[in-house]
């Protein structure tokens, strides 16, 4: 299962096509903290998008940009805090640091994508790490989503400061999240698996006044 | 010196308190002294007091750039304990503790040293190992203390949440019965009054602007009120030590950090001991006026601003409310900051320096207040004899080259 193309690095597809039961990072939180269904009153709706492919891409922007364009068809966001998506909105790439990007793609695509990127990049200095099992995507939607975030993150989420197409790593309560604004309606949180229970509990607690509902 | 006593109070009341004397003079600087102490905080004043009282030095000046006792002496959370891990530190702080135990009488000034006991909580298994290690070491060093389990802690502090439901349940604590708190300002004033009575000139509003050094030897200081000569100069300037060392031409392994503390509004007595938790980062006691006095660790950056970061205060109060959920509706009255000079091994420097006749006593970090009398006494002995007192000797600057640190970060783990 390792790609022999680049012998200096060992790639490894940690996912299988076999019918294996999987547990999303929020699975236990639903059970432990509860998951109130959305109602007409709900001004925030929370939704987990588990089991996506998450890759961390490291290297120089110029080199990577070409490969990402070629493989994914979208440019590498060159500006800090940039987030770009493909036309379907299913694949995204975000700036994490001057030499680090996060790729999120439909679950199952990540290993092939990694291999294609590695091929395109050849022997340039870069790195790709698969972190799909380690994080999950949580969506927040609704008129009060922004206020809920104001209760939770130190970063300024005002639309003038946080337009669509922005993504930042910041402090969420006492944890770290990646906060993204892929479109007008929706906010995305990329949450580390081990912090998922805490983050979820926080969101439910802080979201009570907005009648936060959980879509499952 | 006018003796203070209950009788004196009654006598003075009859004359409407019109005849109380000054507690210390406000003298003009002389041209020369035998010894100059730079820094009129608790440690500096104590040094001058013991020099005059126990070592017969008669001609001493304490030079203070602001007002005496206006630095960390006035800004700390007043905890006094001696349950340090390492022999060297334990000897120093226990020496100090013994002086505390007779200090009010010695100074004829009630410093309100209240031996109400100090609990250092353990919340993890490693905390408990460290506590056992420290208490065992204390016992063999002749320092009182015992290890309590969670039930023992609950019995001492019924209002604390010792349940298993806490995020970090209390597993136990070390308990030093002789430890406690004192009235910080009174310590500085008591030493100042005592030193003044022995003829020490306390020169307030006098700032040292440089040292007079010839052939590697100090022979005086420059100040904003003129030059003053002395062959022995002891610097006890806490957060400003680094600045003074620079004037004298050498560096110290010190960094000055903000340390914050806060008080609640005054409450009826509800907590009669001192509770410290290193793990959740907060400590608390209640003053005789009723304020809860609360503190935590230092801020991470260097700062002389006497203020620190707000999140430090937030985290401290989170810890306090975690330990004492009933205080959630109590209100925070005031917060403030001090400047603590910290050493890499969380132990002080009491040392000779590359300049002959120039001594430094600094780097007390968050532990300075409790050491005030002991530090003053061993430093005084060292200045008087020209040789470091045996208790002070391990705290030499040399240890940062040899590697013989006294790492109180390690298992003692508890600052303050």
């Amino acid at each position: 299962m390792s790609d022999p193309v680049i012998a200096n690095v060992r790639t490894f597809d940690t996912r299988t096509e076999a019918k294996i039961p999987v547990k999303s990072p929020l699975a236990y939180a639903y059970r432990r903290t509860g998951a109130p269904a959305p109602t007409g009153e709900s001004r925030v709706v929370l939704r987990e998008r588990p089991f996506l492919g998450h890759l961390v891409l490291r290297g120089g922007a110029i080199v990577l940009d070409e490969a990402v364009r070629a493989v994914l068809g979208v440019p590498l966001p060159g500006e800090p805090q940039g987030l770009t998506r493909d036309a379907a909105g299913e694949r995204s790439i975000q700036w994490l640091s001057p030499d680090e990007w996060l790729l999120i793609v439909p679950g199952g695509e990540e290993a092939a994508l990694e291999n294609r990127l590695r091929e395109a990049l050849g022997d340039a200095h870069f790195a790709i790490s698969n972190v799909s099992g380690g994080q999950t995507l949580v969506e927040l939607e609704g008129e009060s989503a922004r206020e809920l975030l104001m209760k939770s993150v130190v970063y300024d989420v005002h639309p003038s400061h946080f337009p669509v197409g922005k993504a930042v790593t910041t402090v969420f309560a006492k944890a770290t999240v990646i906060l993204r604004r892929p479109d007008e309606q929706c906010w995305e949180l990329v949450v580390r698996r081990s912090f998922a229970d805490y983050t979820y509990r926080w969101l439910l607690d802080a979201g009570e006044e907005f009648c936060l509902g959980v879509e499952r | 010196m006018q003796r203070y006593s209950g009788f004196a109070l009654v006598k003075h009341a009859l004359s409407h308190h019109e005849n109380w004397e000054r507690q210390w003079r406000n003298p003009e600087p002389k041209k020369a002294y035998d010894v100059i102490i730079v820094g009129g905080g608790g440690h500096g004043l104590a040094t001058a007091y013991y020099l005059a009282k126990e070592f017969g030095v008669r001609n001493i000046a304490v030079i203070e750039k602001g007002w005496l006792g206006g630095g960390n002496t006035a800004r700390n959370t007043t905890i006094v304990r001696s349950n340090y891990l390492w022999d060297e530190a334990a000897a120093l702080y226990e020496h100090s503790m013994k002086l505390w135990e007779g200090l009010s009488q010695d100074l004829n000034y009630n410093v309100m040293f209240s031996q109400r006991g100090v609990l250092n909580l353990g919340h993890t298994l490693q905390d408990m190992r460290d506590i056992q290690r420290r208490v065992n070491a204390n016992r063999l060093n002749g320092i009182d203390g015992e290890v309590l389990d969670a039930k023992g802690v609950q019995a001492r502090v019924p209002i604390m949440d010792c349940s298993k439901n806490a995020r970090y349940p209390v597993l136990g604590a070390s308990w030093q019965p002789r430890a406690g708190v004192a009235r910080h300002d009174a310590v500085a004033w008591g030493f100042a009054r005592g030193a003044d009575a022995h003829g020490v000139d306390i020169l307030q509003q006098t700032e040292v602007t440089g040292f007079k050094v010839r052939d590697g030897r100090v022979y005086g200081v420059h100040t904003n009120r003129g030059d003053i000569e002395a062959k022995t100069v002891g610097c006890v300037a806490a957060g400003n030590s680094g600045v003074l060392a620079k004037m004298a031409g050498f560096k110290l392994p010190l960094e000055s950090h903000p340390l914050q503390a806060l008080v609640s509004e005054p409450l009826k007595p509800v907590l009669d001991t001192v509770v410290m938790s290193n793990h959740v980062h907060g400590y608390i006691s209640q003053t005789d006026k009723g304020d809860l006095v609360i503190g935590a660790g230092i801020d991470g950056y260097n700062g002389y601003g006497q203020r620190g970061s707000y999140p430090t205060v937030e985290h401290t109060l989170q810890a306090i409310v975690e330990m004492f959920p009933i205080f959630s509706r109590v209100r925070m009255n005031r917060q403030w900051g001090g400047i603590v000079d910290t050493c890499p091994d969380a132990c002080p420097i009491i040392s000779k320096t590359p300049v002959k006749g120039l001594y430094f006593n600094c780097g007390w970090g968050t532990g300075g207040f409790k050491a005030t009398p002991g530090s003053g006494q061993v430093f005084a002995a060292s200045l008087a004899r020209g040789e470091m007192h045996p208790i002070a000797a391990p705290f030499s600057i040399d240890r940062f080259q040899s590697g013989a640190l006294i790492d109180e970060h390690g298992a003692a783990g508890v600052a303050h």
Partner: protein
Amino acid sequence: MFHIHCPYCGEHREEEEFHAKGQAHLQRPADPEACSDEEWGDYLFFRDNPRGIHHELWVHAVGCRKFFNITRNTVTYEILETYRIGEQPSFTAEYPDGRRPQDATREAQAPLKAGVHA
């Protein structure tokens, strides 16, 4: 609470995202074995502790994870500049109001001061 401009993220961020990491421009001796105990002790433990302008290393821990430098006044806590690793400060004890362009040129011509990262 500080508001810190991260030179990599290109915007001001809250202090809670950062950790202070002590004095900036410390350089590990190139040949530690050739150092005396005193020199090694200096490198390990002795730091500048100025009252006033100070150059500090910080890391944008909850953010881009990059280390960078801050010139800050330790009395007023005013941040005069932030700059990337490898860059030189414009505000120094010598030039508390910032280096004029001609100063910068002059220094650029002189070799880099010791204790500064390449």
